[in-house]
């Protein structure tokens, strides 16, 4: 456990040791706010909720989260520090989790820094803060899902650009599988069970459900198991390299 913490701390301070953290946070805040106010029509809607704000999170995460995740393992492989890390007395799962949690908490910090909009909507009107809190939790869980995918992909390559592109593609599939256009394509010929399975794999479907203010246990299980599966694959990939 102490090893996990040591790796977690190193990774998290690592983000802030380079301009990456600040660039990321600034772009994230700038993008969320401009989407909310210009594309989302936050003022024009004249309603005291943050759906205009949260609606864009899956699409922002699609590009921003892979940018955090791409370096997780690819950078260590490229610079050779992976040899140092994996010969320290650290269980592999602790290294995988330590890195993942550091990235997740970092994404959480960026997300938490959007709090002025929560204050704003409370100042302007009387929103349902339970729904907003649930949406924040859902957004954070979704970020975790994207990150787990990105961490696993990053373990496959020592090229960060490849890690980024492949992660975006996989995350894109996980996101759009809930869009009506995609589901319509399957509805014509595929059995209903398959269509609902595809829909249930979507981040969008899950996030929409949570955004309505209800954190269903099944949604927690969905994100939990998604993260677990991708991180397990991540650990297996790292371990396979030993036998190569």
């Amino acid at each position: 456990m102490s090893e996990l913490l040591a790796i977690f701390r190193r990774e998290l301070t690592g983000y802030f040791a380079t301009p990456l953290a600040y660039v990321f946070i600034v772009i994230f805040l700038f993008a969320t706010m401009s989407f909310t106010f210009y594309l989302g029509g936050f003022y024009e809607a004249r309603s005291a909720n943050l759906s205009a704000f949260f609606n864009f999170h899956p699409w922002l995460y699609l590009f921003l989260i892979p940018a955090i995740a791409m370096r997780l393992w690819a950078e260590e492989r490229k610079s050779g520090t992976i040899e140092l890390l994996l010969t320290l007395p650290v269980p592999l799962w602790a290294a995988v989790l330590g890195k993942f949690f550091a990235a997740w908490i970092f994404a959480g910090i960026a997300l938490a820094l959007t709090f002025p909009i929560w204050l704003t909507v409370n100042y302007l009107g009387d929103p349902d803060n339970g729904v907003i809190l649930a949406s924040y939790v859902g957004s954070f869980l979704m970020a975790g899902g994207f990150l787990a995918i990105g961490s696993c992909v990053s373990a496959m390559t020592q090229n960060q650009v490849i890690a980024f592109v492949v992660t975006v593609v996989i995350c894109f599939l996980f996101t759009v599988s809930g869009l009506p256009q995609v589901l319509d394509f399957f509805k014509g010929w595929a059995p209903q069970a398959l269509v609902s399975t595809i829909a249930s794999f979507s981040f969008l479907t899950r996030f929409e459900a949570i955004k309505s203010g209800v954190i269903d246990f099944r949604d927690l299980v969905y994100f939990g198991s998604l993260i677990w599966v991708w991180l397990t694959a991540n650990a297996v990939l790292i371990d396979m390299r030993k036998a190569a």
Partner: protein
Amino acid sequence: MISIKNLVKRFGPFTAVDDISFDVEKGEVLGFLGPNGAGKSTTMKMVTGYLSATSGTISVCGFDVEEAPLEARRAIGYLPEGAPAYPDMTPMEFLSFIASVRGLSGDEAMKAIDKAADRTDLRNVMHQPIETLSKGFKRRVGLSQAILHDPPVLIMDEPTDGLDPNQKHAVRGLIADMAKEKAIVISTHILEEVEAVCTRAMIIDQGKIVADGTPAELTAKSKHHNAVTIALPESLGEAPTDTLKKIDGVSEVRVDKGANGENRFTIFPKDGAVLIEKVSGQATAAGWDVKALYAEEGRLDEVFRTLTTSDAEIAGRAS
């Protein structure tokens, strides 16, 4: 403290390490020698658990590296090839990270960091990002990381690569200091290093151990072992060759031109026979004007070249 049995590592059809067995005891400094690609680094990577063996077993301080990897790794300090370290950290941050991963905290960690930094002479750069340090400092950061927890087993892949002669000397001094209470394995291309710090040398070629012994034993395998060189004036010509060949125990005499025009006769013995007294006696008897006379212990580089197949030869065979 390190026990390796029938170790084999294959990468696809290529056998990098081919059935190697050996033990390293406390107090030993084992020098791994061999051309590039001979399997030195691969063997070290398997001992430290970075690669798993295709077959065979490795135990470190009684812990099998596959069965009890964490216990084995706790006993090991490892300097990987190229001394990798996180470039955005300072040596202080980096060593603190290593200390916390190794379960050291508070005063204990500070003491360990201080000691390792002192021994590797890092004091003045403790707060500069590692990426801004010179190659020599980076190497020393890697070294201090390896010795931080005072491990009973130390494995270093080319510890002096990239250091200047003074730093090399200092690192060899450090290794010699630690030698008594540890089992140390280093790999190197520098043959003089083996003679300077190693109590035992092992030459590896194409994944196999081709020689194993003390540096003195290995140099004794050299053709030059106990060879005697005598420098005689040019005026004598090459005539002394025949006289020298008649000495009992001589197998061959070679003549080279010396820097000052003298003739240098190198007399190679049969079976390592000691010849210097006989050669000296012959010179006196013949009344030669001897400019120089000396015997050699042998040449490690010669042993190295005879026992190993060079990359060039491998490439030649492949084409």
